[in-house]
């Protein structure tokens, strides 16, 4: 046989099966393109020179890792589906006298062609679209635009390396699959009758139970820290439950419906219920995968978008004022010294000498104590470990400072307090802080003070007392190990003078900061001074959250595309199966309209079940996601809710488009006589 025979046969085999091969080839090209783009971004100089650019590169490389793992699983799965669809053709080859080795050579050449074409086209498109992606990333993280155009050699090599391995695995798998199959069986694969699926009620109940447990867990977790541990377990449980429910649960449901004779023997239900029972057994796994992919996309995009769009709120919660200076004293007594007044004086001097007048100045004194909550008593403890669900940080402020800061008019008696909670709840009506018995008079939600509490990840109480002096008795209290648990703080914050630009404001901030550091008349007491300005923090936040959002978008595109390909193959596969079935029904007296209706209800159910399930997963995952976002300092619930809803709607639209496109392919096959 001539040398070109096998490559030719491989080529014609693929062109004849273009309906199957084009989506596969597109998937390969798309994955390669995405891998190159994200990889090249992580190496790009533009990223390296950004604020927090190194962290952004790490986030991007995380995306590279996800694409490598997901891409290999997805392409291997898709390819084995393709090979199975072509068993008949290979069977024919072998009947026509081709031995298994020759069929292997055809498969080999097919793999070679797919690998080369997709690597070439994928890299070409990747290099072409790299600049767009970079501009998009810059837009998201609000970085500086550059106009250089460079091909990243290391990314090209990484992409080729990764995909060579993936393609090699795929080729070996195909060869093994073809090698194992028997020629005559190959010819007959699609013709043998199939047993009706047995409903496994036990498995279905286990699936439902697992899901209920995971949901219950997700909803009832109190502390954000416990979430970190449980989240992973819940994700695994939900994935398992989804597969079980789609595979076993759906068959069991169909069986139950069949038992209800008055329901089952109705024109609208008769055909769809019985075909669905069959279909689910085989395609349940595909549907479950689609559902999991959808959930992944939704959780990923809604949380990263929430971080990105909620960034301003998070930033404001962390830094309530534009510029902040705080003096932190290791005990309560520090507040009683003249250090706070000295700060005020320094600030006033500077403001006078520079003729810089802040738009607004806020100051307050506060104290913080940490401990374990036992009933209504806070037992002081100095250190913190992840397993402490009862750990609380308690921020305490005097009534006058609080009223002034929040612009409120509360009144308190000596032992009364106002309580606010963050990342936790408190139900009691009194609180004992290290021996101080305090009665809760009011509860308040408005605590814009204590930006610090947003940055640390523990559950927090905010307490307003009549006068900070009540803390004097516990001012230098120690925990069981003799370590300090209470410190006090003086806070001085101001908002920028609006007459100045941001750059000028930052310049002023640095002048003030330098004065503090070089000024030696606040050194007599032991304390830490912490200066910060929101504008400088903003660019770090932008890069990190923007980078997460960008990777979220890129990965969502990959996942949505993958879901579309899975759906497309499912439709095609079912189309061929249903074709014969519907032609029989036509002969037995079903009208074209009946058939269309039945197809519609069937396809719709099968199609939108994963989306509904994903929506349900998302709803139950929401409390967990919200708690995780709180760890990132996000405090505005409504932002997250709105963004999650928007993400679901957008995904739904994409999904409907995919449905429209692939349902067309299905109708074409079924109605083609």
């Amino acid at each position: 046989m001539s040398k070109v025979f096998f490559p030719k046969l491989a080529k014609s085999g693929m062109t004849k099966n273009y309906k199957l091969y084009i989506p596969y080839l597109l998937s390969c090209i798309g994955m390669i393109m995405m891998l190159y783009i994200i990889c090249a971004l992580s190496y790009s100089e533009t990223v390296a020179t950004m604020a927090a650019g190194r962290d952004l590169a790490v986030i991007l490389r995380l995306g590279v890792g996800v694409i490598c793992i997901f891409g290999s699983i997805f392409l291997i799965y898709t390819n084995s589906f393709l090979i199975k669809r072509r068993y008949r053709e290979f069977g024919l080859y072998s009947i026509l006298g081709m031995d298994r080795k020759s069929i292997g050579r055809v498969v080999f050449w097919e793999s070679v062609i797919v690998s080369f074409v997709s690597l070439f086209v994928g890299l070409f498109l990747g290099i072409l679209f790299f600049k767009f992606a970079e501009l998009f990333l810059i837009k998201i993280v609000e970085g500086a635009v550059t106009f250089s155009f460079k091909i990243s050699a290391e990314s090209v090599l990484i992409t080729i390396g990764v995909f060579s391995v993936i393609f090699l695995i795929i080729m070996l798998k195909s060869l093994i699959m073809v090698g194992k199959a028997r020629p005559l069986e190959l010819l007959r694969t699609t013709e043998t009758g199939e047993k009706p699926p047995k409903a496994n009620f036990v498995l279905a109940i286990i699936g439902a139970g697992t899901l209920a447990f995971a949901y219950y867990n997700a909803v009832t977790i109190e502390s954000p820290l416990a979430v970190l541990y449980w989240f992973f377990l819940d994700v695994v449980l939900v994935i398992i439950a989804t597969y079980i429910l789609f595979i076993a649960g759906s068959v069991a449901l169909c069986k139950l419906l069949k038992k209800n004779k008055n329901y089952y023997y109705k024109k609208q239900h008769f055909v769809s219920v019985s075909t669905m029972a069959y279909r689910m057994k085989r395609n349940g796994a595909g549907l479950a995968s689609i559902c999991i992919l959808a959930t992944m996309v939704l959780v990923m995009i809604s949380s990263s978008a929430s971080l990105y769009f909620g960034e301003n709120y998070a930033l404001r919660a962390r830094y309530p004022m534009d510029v902040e200076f705080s003096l932190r004293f290791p005990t309560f007594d520090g507040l009683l010294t003249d250090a706070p007044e000295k700060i005020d004086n320094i600030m006033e001097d500077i403001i006078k000498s520079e003729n810089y007048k802040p738009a607004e100045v806020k100051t307050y004194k506060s104290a913080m104590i940490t401990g374990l909550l036992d009933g209504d008593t806070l037992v002081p403890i100095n250190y913190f470990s992840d397993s402490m669900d009862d750990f609380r940080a308690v921020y305490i402020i005097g009534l006058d400072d609080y009223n002034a800061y929040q612009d409120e008019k509360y009144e308190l008696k000596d032992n009364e307090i106002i309580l606010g909670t963050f990342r936790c709840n408190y139900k009691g009506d009194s609180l004992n802080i290290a021996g101080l018995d305090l009665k809760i008079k009011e509860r308040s939600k408005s605590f814009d003070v204590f930006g610090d509490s947003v940055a640390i990840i523990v559950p927090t109480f905010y307490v307003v007392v009549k006068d900070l002096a009540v803390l004097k008795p516990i001012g230098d209290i120690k925990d069981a190990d003799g370590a300090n648990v209470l410190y006090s703080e003086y806070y001085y914050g101001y908002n920028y003078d609006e007459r100045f630009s941001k750059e000028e404001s930052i310049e002023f901030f640095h002048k003030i900061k330098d004065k503090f550091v070089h000024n030696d008349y606040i050194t007599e007491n032991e304390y830490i001074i912490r200066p910060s300005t929101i504008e400088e923090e903003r660019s770090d936040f932008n890069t990190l959250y923007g980078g997460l959002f960008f990777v979220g978008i890129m990965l969502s595109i990959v996942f949505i595309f993958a879901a579309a390909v899975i759906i497309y193959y499912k439709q095609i596969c079912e189309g061929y199966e249903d074709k014969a079935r519907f032609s029989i029904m036509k002969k037995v007296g079903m009208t074209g309209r009946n058939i269309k209706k039945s197809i519609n209800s069937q396809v719709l159910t099968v199609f939108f079940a994963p989306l509904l399930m994903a929506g349900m997963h998302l709803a139950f995952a929401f409390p967990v996601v919200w708690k995780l976002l709180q760890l990132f300092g996000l405090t505005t619930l409504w932002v997250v809710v709105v963004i999650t809803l928007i993400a679901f709607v957008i995904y739904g639209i994409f999904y409907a488009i995919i449905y429209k496109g692939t349902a067309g392919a299905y109708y074409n096959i079924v109605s083609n006589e």
Partner: protein
Amino acid sequence: MSLLEVKNLKKVYSTRFGGNKVEALKNVNFTVEEGEFVSIMGESGSGKTTLLNILAALDSATAGSVLLDGKDFSKLKETEVATFRRDNLGFVFQEFNLLDTFSIEDNIYLPLVLADRNHKEMSEKIKPIAQRLGISDILKKYPYEVSGGQKQRAAVARALITNPKIILADEPTGALDSKSSDELLSLFKEVNKTGQTILMVTHSVKAASVASRVLFIKDGEVFHQIYRGDDTNEQLYQKISDTLTMLQTGGERK
């Protein structure tokens, strides 16, 4: 009035761009009386499948008319055709055409479900039919679990359950072994005795010889017909094969 009247039926197939025209049926005329069992014979390519498809309203004629009970169903709208077919015609196919996703029982119910009957009525109807056809004990099984003969009997049951005016059978013994064929044919005969009209297309002489009348089609026309009269199956068999020999050797019309 005859139950089925076929008048000047003509069917011309043209290729996609109207180039070649093939005349599958030239001019077919015949009638079927109520309670008759008619076989239509012919070689492959003679037009018998086309004829059956037109009678089954699966295909439409180029010219001519088909009247069932005096009603011309080539004039029906497409939506009415399916209902008409369901209410008046029963089908038995060579390949059984049972749905593999349904149990035998559900396969038999299919036309009734499509006609919006309730389940109680269906289950009452199926009992005597299943008993008569000897499939009562396989009703709960699935098509892949039963033999070809049983499948075909299930298909007959599906055709009978709507009390059709006429049963159209297309090579019903084509995919069966000889024992199952014999059983099916005697079943047809029995069903016919209860007054059921049957029209069967076949090229098996054995199958045709069970009928009360045999029509021969050649080159798109009814070429000849034989009435059973008082003949036994064997005598009719002989007559049919003589006719076929004559047809094949190109003899003239008697």
